[in-house]
């Protein structure tokens, strides 16, 4: 292991944020960004578990073509709740609210986020939203699909849509607060000497994601509120029977929900930008290009929403414009992939678990991104829109990309968060299992989609069974790959090796403080004198106290 070179056995600091205070009150009323991050970590893991349970049920149902396990009604609720849980209660908060919450103040050398109370409020809103989503489940479940398309959602289904949507609205406000906190913190609280050009790329990408959160989320809040007004009070906005336009809902919904994809993936890209240089012992290749590609993604991401609607009855000309812009948004992502690859060139590459996840991200996100070009291509999208091709594509981006980055980041900063190392052998094994299971689950779905299997089908023609069986088999392997880390992370809390301040000998201010850090992060305000990713010059930490 890379920590083998350390001569003195590292010891836990005497006082740190975890033992600063005890008792349930000290957690539930904490204003410490690190404790809030831990609260988030526990809660999003819980929702990931629930979302994963729905996913397993979906894959079980699709083992056979004839809907033997669940009635279509139940199946519809399963995929709706899977989507809502995973998108709003796992993917959107995942990296920003846990790793980002923990790291951004540390990375900019601040003692907390700009608004610690709002940060805590954000967690409470998230939890309240989560409770509403569970309430919707216990009052029968919702069967609108996570996209809530009108007029189905506003006028036709008889399930507790209002409860679920209210939960999503609350989670949306929590997301806005997190975004607000990040933006103000990055602008106002950077340590002396930490110029924008010296910011870690993780901060850049979370900053870009935060911009989308505060600009986009209000729109989905308005959209869903209008839908609820129509459902509850028959105010005609989307339902043509009341004089509305159903396609308007899609425009408004995707105006947020497409940029939301970048809320999910940008922080993941930020993680990869930290991992690849560290495990290549090299500066990141083309820092400026990687940093500004995040901003470019955030900006272009706002003008591609109608590529979800190429067969929804939009005009030929708007389809052309949105197709062109969708191709444009692919370029900054490609630039990132090329830069990470080039970072490894002439490096000193070692394959610890975080790096394995980073490499998996690069491979899977490349496939996810490139298959996005299929969907951006107008004439081809007509055939594969709303088929399993789309399902495979966005799972390659969301699970293959985002979840993989999240796992990589969690392993990388686990010693900083808990002060202890995870067991490397088990972690490498589970990374491998995730990679194999993931590809087996989702690759066959590309073929299924091109063959014409539509999404959201509880039953399907028998000729599609082969690929569905492969996919379900893959899902069971994938499940193992996600359960293993849950076990060894918990194990490591007590039995893990003590990590020391900087087990990876990584650069960045977060590694200059103790692991776990003290409540106020730094004993003295750090002063930054060098650029980011100062690898190789000397193995000392690039900070003067």
């Amino acid at each position: 292991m890379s920590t083998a070179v350390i001569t003195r056995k590292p010891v836990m600091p005497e006082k740190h944020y975890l033992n600063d205070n005890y008792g349930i009150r000290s957690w539930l009323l904490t204003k410490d960004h690190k404790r809030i991050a831990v609260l988030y970590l526990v809660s999003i893991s819980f929702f990931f578990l629930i979302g994963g349970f729905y996913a397993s049920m979906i894959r079980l149902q699709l083992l056979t073509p004839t809907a033997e396990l669940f009635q279509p009604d139940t199946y519809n609720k399963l995929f709706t709740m899977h989507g809502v849980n995973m998108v709003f209660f796992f993917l959107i908060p995942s990296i920003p609210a846990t790793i980002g919450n923990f790291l951004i103040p540390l990375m900019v050398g601040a003692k907390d986020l700009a608004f610690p109370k709002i940060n805590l409020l954000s967690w409470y809103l998230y939890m309240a939203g989560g409770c509403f989503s569970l309430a919707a489940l216990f009052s029968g479940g919702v069967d609108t699909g996570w996209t809530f398309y009108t007029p189905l959602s506003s006028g036709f289904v008889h399930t507790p849509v209002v409860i679920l949507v209210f939960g999503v609205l609350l989670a949306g406000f929590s997301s806005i607060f997190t975004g607000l906190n990040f933006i103000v913190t990055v602008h106002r609280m950077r340590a002396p000497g930490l110029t924008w050009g010296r910011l870690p790329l993780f901060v850049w990408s979370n900053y870009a994601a935060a911009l989308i959160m505060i600009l986009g989320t209000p729109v989905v809040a308005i959209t869903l509120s209008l839908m609820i007004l129509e459902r509850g009070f028959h105010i005609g906005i989307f339902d043509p029977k009341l004089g509305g336009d159903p396609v308007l809902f899609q425009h408004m919904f995707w105006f947020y929900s497409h940029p939301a994809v970048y809320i999910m993936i940008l922080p993941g890209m930020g993680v990869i930008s930290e991992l690849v240089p560290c495990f290549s012992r090299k500066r990141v290749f083309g820092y400026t290009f990687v940093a500004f590609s995040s901003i470019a993604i955030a900006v272009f991401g706002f003008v591609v929403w109608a590529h979800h609607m190429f067969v929804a009855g939009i005009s030929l000309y708007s389809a052309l414009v949105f197709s062109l812009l969708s191709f444009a948004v692919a370029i900054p992502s490609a630039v990132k992939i090329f830069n990470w690859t080039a970072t490894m060139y002439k490096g000193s590459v070692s394959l610890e678990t975080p790096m394995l996840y980073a490499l998996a991200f690069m491979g899977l996100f490349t496939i996810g991104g490139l298959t996005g070009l299929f969907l951006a291509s107008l004439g081809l999208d007509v055939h594969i829109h709303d088929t399993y091709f789309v399902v495979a594509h966005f799972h390659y981006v969301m699970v293959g990309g985002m979840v993989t980055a999240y796992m990589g980041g969690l392993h990388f900063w686990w010693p900083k968060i808990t002060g202890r190392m995870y067991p490397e052998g088990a972690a490498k094994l589970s990374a491998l299992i995730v990679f194999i299971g993931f590809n087996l689950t989702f690759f066959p779905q590309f073929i299924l989609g091109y063959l014409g299997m539509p999404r959201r089908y509880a039953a399907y023609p028998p000729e599609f069974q082969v690929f569905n069986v492969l996919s379900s088999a893959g899902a069971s392997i994938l499940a193992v790959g996600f359960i293993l880390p849950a076990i060894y992370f918990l194990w490591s809390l007590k039995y893990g090796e003590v990590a020391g301040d900087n087990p990876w000998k990584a650069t960045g201010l977060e590694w200059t403080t103790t692991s776990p850090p003290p409540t106020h992060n730094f004993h003295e305000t750090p002063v930054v004198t060098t650029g980011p990713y100062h690898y190789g010059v000397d193995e000392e930490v690039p900070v003067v106290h």
Partner: protein
Amino acid sequence: MQPNVPLFPEQASSVAAHVDNFYLFLVLITTFFSLLIALLILFFIIKYRKTPERQAVQIHGSTLLEIVWTVIPLGISMVMFVWGAVLYYHLQRPPAGAMEIYAVGKQWMWKFQHPGGQREINALHVPTGRPIRVTLISQDVIHDLFVPAFRVKMDVLPNRYTYVWFTPTQVGTYHLFCSQYCGTNHSGMVGEVTVMKPQDYAEWLASGKAEGSLASQGEKLFQEFGCITCHRPDSGARGPNLQGLYGRPVRLTDNRVVIADDNYIRESILQPNAKIVNGFQPIMPTFQGVISEEGLIQITEYLKHLGEQESQPLNNRTTPTQLRDTEVPSIQQELEKQPGNKPAQQPGKKP
């Protein structure tokens, strides 16, 4: 189960092969770039693996390389854009003289009507070798008509007509799916498209029970609902004359000019006050919830034929119901200048 698992759906329409070729091109590009990245990564982790002897060489970046890997993907993606756009343009423009079929989607069933009045449920019979345009409407939520073997798909909206067209090329039976999630029995909203040789199709049409053509059924409705009492071809009529109206430009009270196409006629029956023809009062009652979607289609078919039957010149009367024939060419020029105002591609804006 077949031992031979196919990777493509059958190619049963004129566009299928074009779509597949484009798809293969994209698969090729994707494979190339995925392999490029994967092999580079593999090569780097082997060649530059961590050893005690060697230190990493620090490289800041290269603007030239950044330009190269921005411009090349941009160039390739522009090829994709243009190719995809050309295909889409083709798919969005039914050729003139296409055979007309009407589809009504409802939870959870497809209802098809042929112009001769033959009806089918969850099944569609079509001949080979002719372009066929299907006019789509939903009577409840949004559905989507998808025939993988034809590589075509179109959302079916509850508030206006959309269209999908194809030219079947291969006799056989193919899946027909609803591919926009539409509630409980979405996965049961499936059917079969049967492609037949033209003479078989003619026989099939002849054997089908029909209560007269769509137009004649529409005429019956026109009488039944009393449309004829106001929409008369005489100067004292309270409603605009509908003779020869279909497909013609109409001037509204606010001086806008719209084409009297399917969507205009449907809207004018369901929401008569949405677009009032110049010179008339907003006195028509709504027929929302009174006439079924099938009925609306039949009335529209009737109005189409109303112009053809009478060979008299259009608008030979003095009331400002419609535009004079002499006015038509200049207005058509005016319309052509406005993008998106084509009959096949209504932007669906309400005043």
